[in-house]
């Protein structure tokens, strides 16, 4: 019952082709970027650093073209394992958190798959019956950072080496989204739009408070995933197409943003927004590439983020509840504010005088060239998609012109105006001190102390006292008698 017939092994359609192309493209970009970033000394570690992204690419491709939930889960697991090895090079603790969360997700998915097989006799990828939907949603939720299940994301994105962060945000979380897209059907209900709106708002809210640039971007990943999940939750074909468009767009611009922040980290040795600054003059090319990404994520007309968000909103018009629409609108304002914040603090204002850029990473060197080439690829794709969104609009049955109507341009302009003015008013507040509020990950690490009693009970069970062992045996026997 693993997969019933051979034709279930693969399921190849437009969406899986687009996703495969996307992951190959991102891996190429990251591989070009990596030589400008890698500082591993031994051959073994360098091999992992350069080889693991391709392994990730291979298994992700397998995952998106797989035709059964079982194959999907296996491939996704293996792709997480590939990323785990890269993260392990830099931060073993984050790597462990990552792989544990992914394994747990895979466990839920496999359980769901097994129940699906038991209920329907097949595990073909596609919508599942309502009573086991929660297993699938929980499993995919670990990947796609649903609220509470997102505990691993900020920490892992923040600590991972930049190529891994770019791939994580660019594709690894998207596989979860891909699974959800395969899962949705018109009777999935309002749980997905609700979750998506919560994610969009919560992600932006946390991002505004962050001072670590990578962590900030990680929270934006949560927020943008919220857009995608909301769109998918609409359940219509337009919704699914919009979700895919935003998935692709977000992969490109978020990868780009992570890579540009990685450049700052290499040049200045920190990614703390309190210390950075003035990079626009020293690294003009990096700044302009960052600007492409920032404008795209904020939804500036002409960039991919604008078109995809317009399409998401078009999908939301199709379902009755206007709440989701306004939630995404509010998240849009937050996004503008937070990228004004990054742009202003990292690139424009005077930097902390104590911070000196590293010579070898300055413009003109080979490393800078590799990095900028790696970043130029997604930037070019972002611009292309922004100006010619016809392909994705066509998937959802829309004209590409309809995305540039007044109905969408006006809210975008209003969002920008509101966001920039709010930032200007509040910039002192953003600049001074830390305002971070603890997220679920710190709560979990605090809560892990609660498990101590379990361990002490277990340890006192294995106390070495034979008499106690025999009492346990008798108790077990009595329990057995009672049970029967």
């Amino acid at each position, binding site marked *: 019952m693993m997969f019933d017939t051979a034709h279930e092994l693969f399921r190849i359609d437009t969406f899986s082709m687009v996703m495969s192309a996307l992951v190959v493209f991102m891996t190429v970009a990251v591989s070009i970027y990596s030589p400008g970033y890698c500082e591993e000394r031994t051959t073994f570690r360098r091999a992992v650093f350069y080889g693991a992204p391709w392994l990730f690419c291979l298994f992700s491709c397998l995952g998106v073209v797989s035709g059964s939930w079982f194959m999907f889960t296996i491939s996704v697991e293996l792709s997480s394992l590939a990323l785990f090895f890269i993260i392990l090079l830099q931060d073993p603790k984050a790597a462990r958190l990552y792989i544990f969360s992914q394994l747990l997700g895979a466990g839920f998915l496999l359980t769901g798959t097994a129940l699906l097989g038991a209920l329907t006799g097949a595990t073909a990828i596609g919508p599942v019956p309502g009573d086991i939907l929660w297993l699938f949603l929980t499993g995919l939720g670990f990947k796609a950072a649903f609220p509470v299940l997102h505990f691993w994301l900020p920490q892992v994105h923040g600590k991972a080496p930049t190529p891994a962060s770019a791939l994580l945000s660019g594709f690894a979380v998207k596989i979860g989204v891909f699974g959800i897209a395969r899962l949705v059907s018109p009777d999935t209900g309002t749980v997905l739009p609700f979750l998506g709106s919560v994610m969009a708002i919560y992600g932006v809210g946390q991002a505004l408070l962050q001072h670590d640039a990578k962590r900030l971007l990680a929270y934006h990943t949560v927020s943008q995933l919220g857009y995608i999940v909301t769109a998918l939750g609409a359940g219509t074909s337009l919704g699914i197409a919009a979700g895919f468009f935003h998935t692709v767009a977000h992969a490109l611009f978020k990868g780009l943003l992570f890579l540009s922040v990685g450049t700052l980290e290499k040049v200045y040795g920190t990614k703390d927004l309190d210390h950075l600054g003035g990079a626009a003059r020293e690294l003009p090319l990096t700044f302009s590439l960052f600007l492409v990404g920032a404008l795209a994520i904020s939804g500036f007309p002409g960039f991919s983020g604008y078109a995809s968000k317009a399409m998401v909103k078009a999908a939301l018009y199709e379902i009755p509840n206007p709440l989701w629409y306004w939630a995404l609108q509010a998240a849009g304002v937050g996004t503008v504010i937070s990228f004004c914040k990054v742009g202003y603090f990292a690139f424009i204002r005077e930097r902390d005088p104590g911070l000196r850029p590293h010579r070898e990473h300055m413009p003109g060197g080979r490393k800078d060239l590799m990095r900028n080439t790696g970043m130029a690829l997604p930037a070019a794709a972002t611009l292309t998609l922004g100006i010619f969104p016809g392909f994705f609009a066509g998937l959802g049955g829309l004209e590409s012109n309809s995305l540039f109507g007044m109905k969408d341009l006006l809210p975008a302009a209003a969002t920008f105006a509101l966001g920039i003015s709010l930032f200007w008013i509040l910039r002192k507040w953003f600049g001074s001190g830390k305002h971070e509020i603890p997220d679920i990950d710190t709560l979990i690490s605090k809560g892990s102390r609660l498990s101590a009693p379990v361990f002490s009970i277990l*340890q006192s069970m*294995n*106390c*070495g*006292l*034979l*008499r106690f062992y*025999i*009492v346990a045996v*008798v108790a077990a026997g009595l329990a057995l008698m009672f049970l029967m």
Partner: protein
Amino acid sequence: MILLSYATAIIIFCIGLYTIMVRRNLFKTVLGLALMESAVLLIIVSSGYIPGGVPPIAPFSGQAVNPLPHAFTLTAIVIGASDIALALAFIVKLHRHYRTVDLDRIRGLRG
């Protein structure tokens, strides 16, 4: 009579188990094991008993009791004795290290 034997056997089995659970002396543990074993033997032998039967020894007249359980019991007696012998050997050897036969102090392996 059979029912009586069963009741006695179960009581002795429980006494043996109780001894093992409660007494700290290792010899008592082994004695408890011996009691439990004897109780099971009693059950097996009495399960073959037929009221008014005669021993199943070659020239017999009338109805003999079932000889099968006797064969089992003989095997079980020998097995039980070897278990007890082994346990006693372990106790003697362990005593060299711990210098005690107090079960609650023999707990080097734990956790």
